[in-house]
């Protein structure tokens, strides 16, 4: 049965007015021509009544524009299927109990910012004792041996550590990206784990501001976590995934 179309477009101050704001820089010195170019560009993006509300000369032959206009496009909600990691969020104590009941041993989670990334903010928020925003990190879990390798860990090193520590889960963080280098980094790790023959023995998850579950699955990860993720989300997923896969 065909689902009924549910159409939506942006809202400014009245239904379906389509109001959007947009800003960008053109590699042109500021002029009337540059401003008209900015406006036409917006129209080609599907924005009608585009108007440049602010313009600025950035020097060196660049100009900056802020525009408002009405989006002509609609989105049909009935056509959207969002994939997200399937798990029930448990509390820290529930997770510790769950591990005790199902595994009868401490689980080992290794976390790292891999390859080019030097920003440990994300992995620290998940791993470190104090956690983030009042949510304790994995180091505070009694049934989890949490090892945080920090920044710029090569895929080789992470795979080596996974073997040496008999890791149950690898938590990979990618925070800062430039020219999509995070995608290459993440793929490289998966290749490495497969080459070492340990991919199947490990729950592999990735987190970061640019990460979605869908992207993670595409890259060969078990789950992806975006912003607003805390330690209990990651741990809940990992332990439930382990049970699902019959890992002991």
């Amino acid at each position: 049965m065909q689902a009924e179309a549910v159409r939506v477009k942006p809202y400014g101050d009245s239904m379906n007015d389509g109001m959007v704001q947009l800003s960008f820089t053109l590699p042109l010195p500021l002029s009337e021509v540059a401003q008209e170019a900015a406006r036409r560009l917006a129209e080609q993006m599907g924005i009608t009544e585009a108007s440049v509300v602010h313009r600025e000369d950035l020097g060196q032959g660049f100009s900056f524009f802020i525009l408002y206009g009405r989006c002509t496009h609609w989105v049909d909600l009935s056509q959207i299927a969002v994939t997200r990691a399937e798990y029930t969020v448990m509390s820290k104590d529930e997770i510790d109990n769950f591990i005790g009941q199902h595994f009868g041993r401490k689980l080992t989670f290794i976390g790292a910012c891999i390859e080019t990334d030097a920003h440990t903010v994300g992995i620290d928020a998940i791993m470190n004792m104090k956690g983030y925003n009042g949510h304790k990190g994995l180091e505070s879990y009694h049934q989890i041996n949490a090892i945080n390798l920090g920044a710029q860990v090569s895929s080789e090193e992470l795979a080596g550590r996974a073997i040496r520590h008999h890791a149950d889960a690898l938590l990979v963080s990618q925070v800062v990206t430039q020219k999509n280098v995070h995608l290459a980094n993440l793929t490289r790790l998966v290749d490495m784990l497969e080459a070492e023959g340990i991919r199947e023995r490990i729950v592999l998850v990735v987190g970061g501001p640019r990460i979605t579950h869908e992207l993670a699955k595409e890259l060969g990860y078990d789950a992806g976590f975006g912003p607003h993720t805390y330690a209990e989300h990651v741990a809940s997923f990992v332990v439930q995934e382990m049970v699902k896969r019959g890992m002991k």
Partner: protein
Amino acid sequence: MPHLSLDTELIDQARTRARNIAVQVWEQVSSYTTTTVERATLRLFGVDGVNDQGVPLPNVVVDHLHKKGMLGKGAVYPVANAMRFHGITAQEVALRVAGGSLHLDGVPPGDEGAVTELAHSLAEQACAAIQAKREEKNKLVERLGMGEPPYLYLIVATGNIYEDIKQAQAAARQGADIIAVIRTTGQSLLDYVPYGATTEGFGGTYATQENFRLMRRALDEVGEQIGRYIRLTNYCSGLCMPEIAVMGALERLDMMLNDSMYGIIFRDINMQRTFIDQFFSRMINAYAGIVINTGEDNYLTTADAYTQAHTVLASQFINEQFGLLSGLTEEQMGLGHAFEMDPDMEDGFLWELAQAQLVRQVFPTSPVKYMPPTKYMTGNIFKGHVQDALFNVTSVVTGQTIHLLGMLTEAIHTPLLHDRYLSIENARYIFNNMRHLGEEIEFKPGGRIQKRANQVLCQAAAMLMEIEAMGLMQAIGRGMFADICRFPEGGKGLSGVVPKTADYYNPFTELMLSGKLGGR
């Protein structure tokens, strides 16, 4: 300027303890040299370039000496001996070693007095070259001026030095006073300095001498056009600290990120290696008139800015004393801190003001470096712009000196051209609009801000007492900074630490410090 009533005796006491801590470390490591200290020394003698494998010649010569067990004497003496015996330059010595036609252990020993005399005169030439750069800068600053503090410090980070130049020149025209070229991720862990102009890097651009030269020229060019001397910053950190200091001294950099503990804590570089390297690199920075920036702000990206504020202050005291031991003046120490408290915290702005004012007063002549919010930047660029505005207010009100510009797009990507524009506009608006607000403010005696500042000072003093008793290396092992533990035998680069033999020779320590080692 606003003023806090602080316990000055406690400040003096903290300073004395920090001095004892730094001296203890210095005594533990001063009988060692490192591979990069020796490479830096060779660079000062004019050794540069790479061999046919792309290995930098300073590495080739130092590895050669290390392999033959000759590095404990230092690289200078055997190289000078070979120069004298063959009548060639240091660069020619390096080229012959690289080509395999010269083995430094096979050169007949020359007259010791004559060899050291040659080395000494070459070292004097190197010092004169650095002094000439320093004077060149002074003349430019005198003619063009430098803007007024807080100086706007902006980063460029495209990975391509030629794109960096475009962005840096645009930033200078928009009002930047200082340009920092962020290094490519991972350079801190390279045990050599790449060579030549580079166009590829991740999250930044390789620090090479040629890149330094290109950016210096570009900033001089734009500085002439806009009538303001634009200062250039790079990263004197990682496994090649001393060599990068030399490159910066020769290419007239103005500032260097150079922390005594950052590499240990955040890059897991061996602590003995780091303490030796930071000493030599700071000595060169000091001699070249370069202002260093320390990295305490980084602690707060890991540890909580409210509860761990005193660790920043304690580390600043230690960094200051390490700096003084290496010949830096207080005016050359941009001690670092940051605006990193949780924006949801009630009165968080008051605690930021208290901290910024405290740092300003405890280090009154230091060009304090103030870092913007990063940890609680979310991707909500509109709120981020407001967070940066509060940071800008704190900076101008408390008279911070080096102001790293916050970006509304922090946590999303390295800054785009217009991100930088919007952030400069924000800062200039606030600095200009609130220029003298600080002079109109008095903090209420016994009020929240005064109490908070004194509490942080007391905690820092107590922490320094504890560190003094156990030693700094032990303290780092206990995770007292940034909640991260490191150990004396751990980390990268330990194999490059070499005990000095009794006849170790390096003319630069004497020439650059002229006997004022630690002013002791």
